[in-house]
């Protein structure tokens, strides 16, 4: 198992393949395993040198009590690249991993050939969220009304409310992957919720404000599921970021990588080979970018 010391913390990573560097950043409470079961890791290693790593506090990386904002984790990513000798990379982030990725592009554009966002909501863009499309309504349809949790409640939820939802989520089985049907109430998950500031930090824009979007210069391809709560973010980003193209994947939600991995891989590989050229061509020829 490969580990690197990153800002004083042991970080678990894997690197395979040959070609331009691609780095994969998973979402909250996930791990490198997400990229295995979504096919992304094995598919991209055929053409790129792919590095996937466990975020601090996740998987086989060590945890710290605090330091989980997207700015903190972008700092960890650049430190990981320094340690591994990766000067520049294409970076792909899913969900909160996309917040880390976009924050990285803002802070370290010179280390970034291009980025890919996969259904990332962003703390500063919470107003764009369509909570009616949150998968939890279906999963917890019996429990939520008893708790007084409604879409209106969710939109007003304070930190205590978010903590309630996260605690509640330990009671439901895993919905997908090789452990589906198994418990989510694992020691790793408990530790993240109870011994770290993660549940507070992920709601903190930590400098990645709506106004700063226009300052992000690396090319960006932003994928969103058609029935995701965050679908509206795609057009918002492509209108505000000069080098961003939005992509909506039909008939899928927040975890579109699990349900439509081939669509993603087919669209993202040509972009990864030449992010700047791909975005330039797409912007010049509007037919090449999918309107949202």
């Amino acid at each position, binding site marked *: 198992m490969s580990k690197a010391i990153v800002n004083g913390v042991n970080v678990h990573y894997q690197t395979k393949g040959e070609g331009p560097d691609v780095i994969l950043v998973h979402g909250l409470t996930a791990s490198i395993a997400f990229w295995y079961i979504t096919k992304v890791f094995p598919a991209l290693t055929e053409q790129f040198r792919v590095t996937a790593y466990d975020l601090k506090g996740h998987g086989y990386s060590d945890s710290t009590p605090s330091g989980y904002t997207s700015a903190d984790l972008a700092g960890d990513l650049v430190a990981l690249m320094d340690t591994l000798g990766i000067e520049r990379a294409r970076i792909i982030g899913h969900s909160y991993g996309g917040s880390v990725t976009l924050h990285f592009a803002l802070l370290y554009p010179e280390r970034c050939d291009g980025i890919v966002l996969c259904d990332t909501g962003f703390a500063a863009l919470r107003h764009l969220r369509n909570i009616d499309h949150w998968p939890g309504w279906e999963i917890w349809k019996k429990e939520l009304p008893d708790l007084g949790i409604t879409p209106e409640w969710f939109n007003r939820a304070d930190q205590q409310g978010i903590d309630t939802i996260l605690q509640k989520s330990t009671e439901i089985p895993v919905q997908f992957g*090789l452990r589906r049907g198994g418990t989510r109430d694992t020691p790793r998950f408990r530790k993240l919720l109870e011994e770290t500031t993660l549940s507070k930090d992920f709601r903190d824009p930590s400098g990645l404000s709506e106004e700063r979007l226009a300052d992000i210069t690396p090319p960006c391809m932003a994928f969103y599921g058609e029935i995701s709560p965050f679908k509206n973010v795609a057009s918002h980003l492509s209108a505000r970021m000069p080098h961003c193209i939005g992509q909506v994947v039909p008939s899928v939600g927040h975890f579109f990588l699990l349900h439509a991995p081939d669509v993603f891989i087919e669209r993202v590989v040509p972009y990864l080979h030449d992010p700047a050229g791909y975005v330039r061509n797409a912007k010049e020829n509007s037919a090449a970018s999918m309107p949202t």
Partner: protein
Amino acid sequence: MLPIDRNSVRSELLKVITTLRDDWDYSGEITEQTGIFQDLGFESIDAVALGSAIEDHYNRSLPFAEFLMKANERNAKDVTIGELVTFVVDHLSRTGKKP
């Protein structure tokens, strides 16, 4: 080089599994029918780490990501020790072929 017959691989695999997690306290008998998720309580990331540990143990690169991806695609309820043994034996037997 370690032997690659089925019994030897199973024995080596069990050694790798028991050293994988220092907090691991499974005390039941492990057979080829034992499932790593349902029986041994693995999380997905433990399976990823197991793949790395097997590669380290045999000093060979193995397509473990594809193995897990295919198990997921066929809606497998679990991955058994027997399937892992088959995977390792198959790939170690292929001389000169790197994934």
